[in-house]
């Protein structure tokens, strides 16, 4: 039983068909890779799944056996679908701890008016949640920066915080949009290792968009390939790597065969 399924998912911006009839399934407890050239629609796909964009008529998205097509973003998040953004979108002026606390928001048990009527309960619950979030920060190595504004973290730390904030809500599924962008190869390896540990620890299903092919090839169970908004290939890393359609689309027509292999193995 797939945890996430899209059928005929489409999205156009004016005349541009950013996502074109994509049907895709993600099985539970897997790491599913999503690759494709720049502008092929990967981020748009995530935005559709998480309710940031509304899909075109005729699309269907099911998450955890619930039809979430056209549902608002917070509704989908409440059902356990979390994500990071390519450009992170951290809450820059909020402290690192507050960033992950916002990530925890869907599980808040007191009413929004509780600060007026039941301050004691707010403090009691927040204390427990803060301890829990602090543990998460320790795990991703940001605990000692807990009180500084997110905007003041280094690039790598910011990527970790984005990950932490997405995990704070204890999602069933996590969508990662280029988690390693801008990191050095060593740091990308470290980050991927962290992600895999988090996956085990929190029993996550992961969909990851990543440009560094080596990373996708070595960590993903299944890979889907987008090109011009269409799904052009899908299968095991081994299969996708050797699919002529992928080689053709993904690495550009002008590149020689050996170069492609080299890039994929790099």
């Amino acid at each position: 039983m797939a945890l996430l399924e899209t059928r005929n998912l489409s999205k156009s911006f004016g005349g541009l068909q950013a996502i074109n009839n994509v049907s895709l399934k993600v099985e539970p407890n897997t790491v599913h890779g999503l690759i494709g050239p720049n502008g092929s629609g990967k981020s748009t796909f995530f935005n559709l799944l998480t309710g940031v964009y509304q899909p075109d008529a005729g699309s269907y998205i099911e998450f955890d056996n619930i039809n979430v097509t056209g549902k608002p973003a917070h509704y989908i998040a409440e059902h356990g679908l979390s994500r990071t953004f390519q450009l992170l979108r951290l809450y820059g002026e909020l402290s690192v701890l507050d960033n992950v606390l916002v990530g925890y928001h869907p599980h808040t048990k007191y009413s929004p008016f509780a600060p007026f009527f039941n301050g004691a309960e707010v403090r009691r619950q927040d204390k427990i949640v803060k301890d829990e979030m602090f543990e998460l920060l320790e795990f991703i190595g940001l605990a000692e920066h807990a009180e500084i504004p997110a905007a003041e973290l280094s690039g790598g730390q910011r990527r970790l915080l984005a990950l932490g904030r997405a995990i704070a809500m204890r999602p069933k599924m996590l969508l990662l949009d280029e988690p390693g962008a801008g990191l050095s190869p060593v740091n990308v390896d470290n980050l991927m290792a962290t992600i895999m540990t988090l996956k085990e620890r929190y029993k996550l299903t992961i969909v990851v968009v990543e440009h560094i092919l080596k990373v996708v090839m070595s960590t993903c169970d299944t890979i889907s390939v987008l090109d011009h908004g269409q799904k052009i290939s899908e299968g095991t890393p081994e299969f996708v790597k050797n699919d002529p359609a992928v080689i053709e689309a993904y690495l550009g027509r002008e590149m020689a065969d050996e170069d492609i292999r080299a890039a994929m193995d790099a």
Partner: protein
Amino acid sequence: MGILSFMADFIDSLAKRHRLLPWLLAYALLLPLPFVLTILFNEYLIDLANRICLFILLAVGLNIVKGFCGQVTVGHIGLYAIGAVTSAVLSLEPGGFGGALGFGWPIWAAIPTAVLVTAFAGLIIGLPSVRLEGAYLALATLGLGESVRIFIAVTPALGSSTGLMMIPAPRIGSFVFDSFTSYYYLVMTAAITGIYFSFSILRSATGRAFQAIREDTIAASVNGINVVKYKLLAFVLSAIYAGLAGALFAHMPPGYLHHNNFTVIEMVTLLLMVVLGGIGNVWGGVIGAIVVAIAYDQTKDLVFYFMDRPIVFQPLVFGLSMVLLVLFMPRGIGGWIEDFQRNRRFVRRSEERLSGTARNP
């Protein structure tokens, strides 16, 4: 800096014993203020202190929607007007002057009802925020706020041009809050309680949701925050403050209300408080309210004559200060406060690390 750190340390040590101790201390220190003012200056200054307390309530409330949640609203003064007029009309005796409406309710029923009515009005003023942002939202809320004032100005039942008179003073048993000094205790208590609760909001999931919306609305919605609901909630909470301030204003001696109290100029004054305070910082807003209210009071009657024509230049001064503030002090007083607090935290952490007592915050 030394004396400030000392005070901050002292407040921290109080707070460690009991969360409410610093608040009680502040309350106790403010109790004798009317007597001090009377001895040192004159009784009129108590009236100013009372109006400062109302401005603090207004500024702290505005800070919730504008500072915490990042929604630009210029309709706050309209909410203040609604709170004031509702409470006045509900508590006035029927058949008052010049066809003014009156329901003869007891004041302690009129004030909470006025707050509720204003909260509902806040919801309506907040509705444009669902679709609009920034300058467009400012325009929409400005329109709504100003139309409230004009409605009051043209409706005889609500006082129109003469205003509402002889609005009764609150009483508890046989004690009547009809002097500057007695009223001071009412509005000062309201102001401190208002500040306290604005911190309660800020330090809860509600406040964090507001700030997340301010920082990045899309990220907030993906983090499971119902953006529409929380934006409207911010408007409603800030309206509760405005409604309470308005109601307390209506019953304040001499119990007189006029729509001129709710003009765009008052709104600009209010904005100036929040901007000077530093958007989002509660204490900054409080200090901003005090400073601007005093400046407002001192410049109110400043008139100079140009070719025998009187020119009131207060609006000019206030408008200019606003521009200068935004240009040269964009973080306001709150910016200094935040820097100060961060320095202290930093020093404390380093000390803890040195002495090996570091622990989770």
